[in-house]
């Protein structure tokens, strides 16, 4: 009977779990790592980026984004939208072509792969014959022209990838008609470029690597004209009126060739120019020219810089009338395109979109001075390397507006024009609350991001470098644009990975959203307390040095020195302005930081100890050294580690040298011997791999390294000494499994400014298992975590229950353990490591709302382990609820970068420049929900696509009226679509898709 009831309870709990928890990776924020291809559809107004890891990402209006991943782990080398379609073709490194489409599904949209294709040549042909080097998506939307390394052009019908062998243009066909006097006719080399005549879709120009260009008539299947350029070809551009062709070459020149209307071989090189000439130049890799309604055209090309003096610059030159600018990027240019005005997208160029390796830069070509337009997405998070992050949920409107106002003052140099890429509709509901993500960077900046929705939008940037003297000259970046400089460089983009001083790096951030106080701590033991001020202010920041060693002897700090503080007043712009500075001595990395804005206290910890600072009185309250005298590593600082890396490097070099020597010994001019040596080397390598990785099994002891390192620090108003009086308290946990508790005595509010705050040691807990303490939480009488400071004062949280007894939850890397307070006795625990071998890496407290009933919710611990799994642990009973694999276990930096929100979401870095956002909550999910429609056809005569039929446009209207009512119909439609496969896809004029399956499964029955 009892057993039966228990079973019933369990299944009830299981159901509740399903209502509370659900794991989704929802969206990627930031800039794709290692982009390798760019595509753009003027008709869809969508931008596509392919990456070296085989991902394809589509972006339209802010909030409209899609992502797909190729099964092959190969780089995307080219992306082409089929004109006026919702399909796009990608070419991968492995020579495979893939067809993607935006497809309707349950009222939203979805990017999915619908076909793949690899060219097959005649039997016995070398692979170069079918190695695709150039792709042209024909404007008919039905043909794909594939130029290959062997010099052939294959014609393929899309989207089904049917080869039209009879229409292929073989090299022989072309070569036979090449004029005899053309120098390079014996070897035309690969096909470098394919371009369609903008006014006659039957004509394409085929550009060969050797330089020759041939205008080919697809209908008549013959060459119309030969353009005998002799320089190595880089790119070809057919002018919009079809009257001439621009070609760019490897020597930094570009040429303009007239296209004869009559079919006479009267080719004429009208103009040839090496824009940055005289001395040898690098290749112009791409050239485009766009006409304007009135006045001269825009000429844009990438590269072409003088080899010797500026060969290392990454430049795009824009020439319009008398204006000539060489846009100078900080990373390699992948590709670029221009966006044109007008409903048909054939008007004046309005914006230049440049994809460089580390960012996307959009330049407003219609505003004087060609300013940069701030991107609403794809922002390079890593413009300086991210060193830490901090998430604050539910920001009060007041603070939000002040931060935005401060940020607006910083972005005055951006163009005022709206974002020019506007494809698709964002159907996601407005985010329920305002969330901030703060990222700390290596250069001492803290960036504030609007993390409420799908777009991670930059709000404000705080720099802490101004407080200190650094080697960098602040005017360093200003000395450009000097008169008469040639080429006329202009620096654009914000990616700047070079940190002036690594000691400035931000390691910990804590923001109080109610008071606007912010504290940040850095690599050289600096802790700054900042206050939000709407006015600029000039002030001196007083430094307070804190000696964490407390007379500990036998200490040699071999690490970096502390930062040198500016003693003169510094002018701080509106925004967060530092007013207090603590410098730890020795200047080790700050490893734990917290701020209590109600008590006006900041607590911090390093590998040597921790301290408590009163920022109202600018006074140290407490300093505690946690060093273990036998811990050499912590004593000496990071240098000794460097030494060991050096040593191991030296060893590995030695090993390589040794194997080379052994190779040389066997090297006699004899193939067999060489082979033997190779085999031996291989065997050696194999042996090296076989040499087993060993792990030492040893109990932790107090003299392991860095046992004194403070991992977590926490303020709580709780029962520390007796069960009837709650007092403010400070808690600190170390790497050696030790927890220190201090009772704080705060003077009454009216004397807060003059009476001292005191801290008195109250308790010290040494965990028997000695695992590092990574989190401390005090739970109130209801078992709920204590609210944040000022949260109750602002009526945003229920005041904690002070009647029932409080509990202390200590989270170590190995266990979750609940103790009673004030008499710290163990109540319950959950062992993690002892049971499954994983260890806690990141932990957060979150509130989970039920998806079924509005008013039910639970607090839980969110945990990320070193195996990359996320767990939810219930509070206060510390029981594992759910777990999901989240990060690859090898991705150590991804695991280390994870932050959790207070509502069951999280972020982690999937590359130096991208955050993956995930959600564990059923109620709080931020994911793209968007809709892309097939463009209405332009007046262009080339269209042979079926017009949207009545049914589907009615369907569209219906959705616009009342979407929910139509969901069933939608599902049915998509089901029908599935049955009839691709043909129905082609007919559908409205493509709706969904990036994520988001509806929770309804569990049938009770």
């Amino acid at each position, binding site marked *: 009977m009892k057993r039966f009831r228990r079973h019933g309870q369990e299944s009830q709990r299981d159901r509740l779990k399903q209502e509370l928890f659900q794991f989704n990776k929802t969206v990627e924020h930031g800039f794709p790592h290692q982009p390798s291809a760019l595509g753009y559809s003027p008709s869809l107004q969508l931008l596509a980026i392919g990456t070296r890891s085989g991902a394809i990402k589509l972006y339209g209006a802010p909030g409209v984004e899609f992502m797909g991943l190729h099964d092959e782990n190969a780089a995307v080398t080219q992306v082409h939208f089929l004109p006026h379609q919702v399909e796009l073709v990608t070419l991968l490194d492995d020579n495979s072509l893939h067809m993607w489409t935006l497809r309707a599904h349950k009222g939203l949209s979805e990017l999915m792969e619908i076909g793949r294709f690899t060219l097959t040549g005649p039997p016995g042909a070398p692979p170069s014959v079918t190695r695709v080097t150039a792709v042209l998506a024909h404007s008919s939307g039905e043909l794909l022209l594939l130029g290959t390394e062997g010099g052939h052009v294959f014609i393929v019908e899309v989207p089904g990838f049917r080869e039209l062998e009879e229409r292929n243009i073989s090299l022989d066909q072309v070569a036979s008609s090449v004029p005899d006097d053309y120098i390079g006719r014996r070897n035309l080399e690969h096909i470098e470029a394919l371009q369609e005549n903008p006014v006659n879709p039957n004509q394409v120009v085929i550009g060969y690597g050797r330089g020759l260009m041939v205008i080919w008539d697809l209908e008549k299947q013959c060459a119309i004209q030969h353009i005998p350029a002799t320089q190595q070809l880089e790119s070809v551009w057919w002018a919009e009126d079809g009257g001439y062709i621009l070609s760019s070459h490897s020597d930094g020149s570009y040429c303009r060739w007239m296209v004869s209307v009559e079919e006479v071989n009267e080719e004429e090189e009208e103009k040839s120019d090496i824009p940055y000439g005289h001395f040898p130049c690098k290749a112009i890799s791409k050239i485009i020219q766009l006409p304007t309604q009135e006045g001269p055209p825009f000429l844009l090309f990438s590269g072409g810089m003088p080899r010797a003096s500026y060969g290392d610059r990454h430049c795009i030159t824009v020439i319009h009338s008398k204006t000539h600018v060489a846009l100078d990027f900080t990373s390699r240019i992948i590709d670029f395109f221009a966006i044109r005005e007008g409903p048909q997208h054939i008007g004046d160029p309005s914006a230049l979109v440049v994809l460089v390796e580390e960012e996307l830069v959009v330049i407003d070509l219609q505003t004087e001075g060609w300013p940069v337009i701030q991107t609403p997405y794809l922002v390079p998070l890593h413009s300086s390397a991210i060193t830490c992050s901090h998430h604050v949920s539910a920001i009060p409107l007041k603070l939000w507006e002040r931060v935005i106002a401060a940020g607006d003052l910083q972005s005055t140099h951006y163009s005022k024009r709206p974002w020019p890429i506007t494809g698709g509709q964002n159907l996601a509901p407005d985010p329920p609350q305002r969330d901030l993500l703060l990222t700390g960077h290596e250069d001492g900046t803290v960036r504030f991001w609007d993390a409420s929705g799908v777009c991670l939008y930059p709000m404000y940037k705080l720099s802490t470098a101004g407080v200190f003297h650094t080697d960098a000259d602040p005017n360093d970046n200003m000395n450009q644009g000097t008169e008469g400089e040639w080429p006329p460089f202009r620096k654009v983009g914000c990616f700047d990975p070079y940190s002036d001083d690594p000691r400035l790096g931000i390691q910990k951030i804590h923001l109080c959203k109610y008071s606007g106080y912010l504290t940040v701590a850095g690599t050289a033991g600096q802790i700054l307390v900042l206050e939000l001020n709407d006015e600029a202010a000039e002030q001196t920041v007083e430094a307070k040095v804190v000696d964490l060693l407390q007379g500990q002897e036998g200490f040699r700090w071999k690490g970096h020195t502390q930062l040198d503080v500016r003693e003169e007043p510094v002018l701080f712009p509106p925004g967060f302005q530092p007013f207090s500075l603590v410098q730890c001595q020795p200047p080790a990395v700050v490893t734990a930081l917290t701020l209590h804005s109600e008590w006006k206290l900041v607590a911090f910890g390093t590998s040597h100890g921790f301290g408590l600072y009163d920022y109202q009185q600018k006074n140290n309250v407490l300093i505690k050294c946690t060093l273990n005298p036998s811990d050499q590593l912590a004593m000496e600082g990071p240098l000794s580690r460097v030494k060991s890396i050096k040593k191991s490097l030296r060893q590995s070099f030695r090993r390589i040298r040794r194997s080379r020597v052994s190779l040389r010994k066997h090297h006699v001019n004899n193939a067999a011997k060489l082979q033997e040596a190779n085999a031996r080397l291989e065997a050696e390598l194999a042996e090296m791999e076989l040499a087993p990785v060993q*792990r030492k099994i040893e109990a932790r002891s*107090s003299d392991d390294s860095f046992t004194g390192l403070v991992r977590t620090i926490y303020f709580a108003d709780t029962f520390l000494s007796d069960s009837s009086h709650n007092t403010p308290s400070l808690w600190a946990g170390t790497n050696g499994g030790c927890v220190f508790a201090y009772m704080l005595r705060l003077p009454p509010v009216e004397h807060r400014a003059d009476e001292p705050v005191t801290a008195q040691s109250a308790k010290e807990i040494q965990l028997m298992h000695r695992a590092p303490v990574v989190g401390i939480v005090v739970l109130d009488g209801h078992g709920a975590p204590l609210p944040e400071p000022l949260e109750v004062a602002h009526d945003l949280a229920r005041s904690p229950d002070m009647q029932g007894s409080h509990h202390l939850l200590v989270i170590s890397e*190995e266990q979750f353990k609940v103790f009673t307070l004030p008499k710290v006795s163990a109540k319950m625990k959950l062992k993690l490591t002892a049971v499954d071998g994983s260890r806690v890496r990141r932990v957060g407290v979150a509130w989970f709302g039920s998806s079924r009933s509005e008013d039910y919710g639970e607090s839980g611990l969110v945990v990320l382990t070193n195996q990359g799994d996320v767990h939810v642990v219930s509070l206060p009973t510390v029981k594992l609820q759910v777990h999901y694999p989240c990060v690859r276990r090898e991705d150590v930096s991804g695991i280390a970068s994870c932050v959790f929100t207070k509502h069951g979401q999280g972020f982690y870095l999937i590359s130096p420049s991208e955050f993956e956002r995930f959600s564990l909550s059923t109620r709080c999910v931020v994911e793209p929900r968007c809709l892309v429609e097939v463009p209405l056809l332009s007046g262009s005569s080339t269209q042979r696509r079926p017009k949207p039929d009545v049914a589907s446009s009615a369907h569209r209207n219906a959705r616009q009226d009342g979407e929910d009512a139509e969901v069933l119909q939608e599902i049915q439609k998509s089901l029908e679509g599935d049955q009839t496969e691709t043909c129905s896809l082609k007919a559908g004029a409205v493509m709706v898709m969904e990036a994520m399956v988001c509806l929770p499964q309804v569990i049938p029955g009770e």
Partner: protein
Amino acid sequence: MNKNHRVPSNRSLSAVEVKSKFGAEFRRFSLDRSKPGRFDEFYGLLQHVHRIPNVELLVGYADVHGDLLPINNDDNYHKAISTASPLLRLFLQRKEEADYTFGTNSLTRKKNTVLSAVLLRPDATRKKTPVIISLPKDFRPVSSIIDVDILPETHRRVRLYKHGQEKPLGFYIRDGSSVRVTPQGLEKVPGIFISRMVPGGLAESTGLLAVNDEVLEVNGIEVAGKSLDQVTDMMIANSHNLIITVKPANQRNNVVRSGGGGGGGAASGSSGRSSDSGASYYGYSSHGGVGAAASMPSHIIQNFPVGEPESDEDDEDLVIEAGGEAEPIRRASSNYSMPSLPRYEPHLNLRAAASSTSALSINANGTLPTSGSSGSLSNANATSNTPSPDRAVDRRSLEEDGTVITL
């Protein structure tokens, strides 16, 4: 620091200083290290210097690890003399007063070989004459073979007792592959193997684990499918009471379950039973290497939860209250407890020796810890000034005023 060497430095190296304690009385004398003589002569000498000629005595000494070991034959007598540096501390008891005896009856002789095998006392087996040997409970358990009755004969479940000793666990593990018999035939599967033993470590000294043994389970959890790092973390998390099930590389010494046959199999089998029998043990923690002039801080009683298969010893986190009293956290139901401080002992003892002349419980009570029954710490905690809080105090002061003590 200097206090540490004050006494022994002016003595000649050939002499062993002996401090013998009987009841509340001390006697000091010296012996020639090179010519220690025989045990019965030594026994007579002790009776003489303490003026107790007709009292039957049990002789124990504190070895370098701080353990109380018996002296009852020539071999362990010589061992005691040779390892004493600089001081040999002896504890004498009346045989009839002891709650246990160093037994000589025939029943224990059989176990003698077992124990000596387990404890690696090679000289104990060489004796031809009937050996006077201690009961198992006089020793601290180091390891045991458990669950012999439920495991396949090819497997061995070894329990390592890390508690209360300085000895490192001392082994390494690696990835490897092993061959399994499956319905599909032989299959190669990845496995975890012991790759190296640290000389002098606990794992090596037990003799129950060997290089290339395959690790199958850690504290009851199968390691199959887990990475090397995961298994490492599991073992370390369980290191206070590590139970590993291995498939020994050398299958010749397996426990033979039926018939209680001869050879090593029977021996290890019985040792498994005997040390897993739920008896409780004492360990005496004291330090031969520390200053001799001051009286030693008292003994530490260590009680081991030997009988419990799933020990929750790590529950006993040490909590130090502001007032300086330390108490190990324990569950109400558990009758044992264990102060967690061993790593600090050398410092602490030194400090105590240097700072406090008042003798602790040995002197005060005037008794050897013979009367203590198992689970007596809580008892002791309540009644007398027991060592663990004192140590805690010492440690706290050590940390707080930051005095550096280097040994």
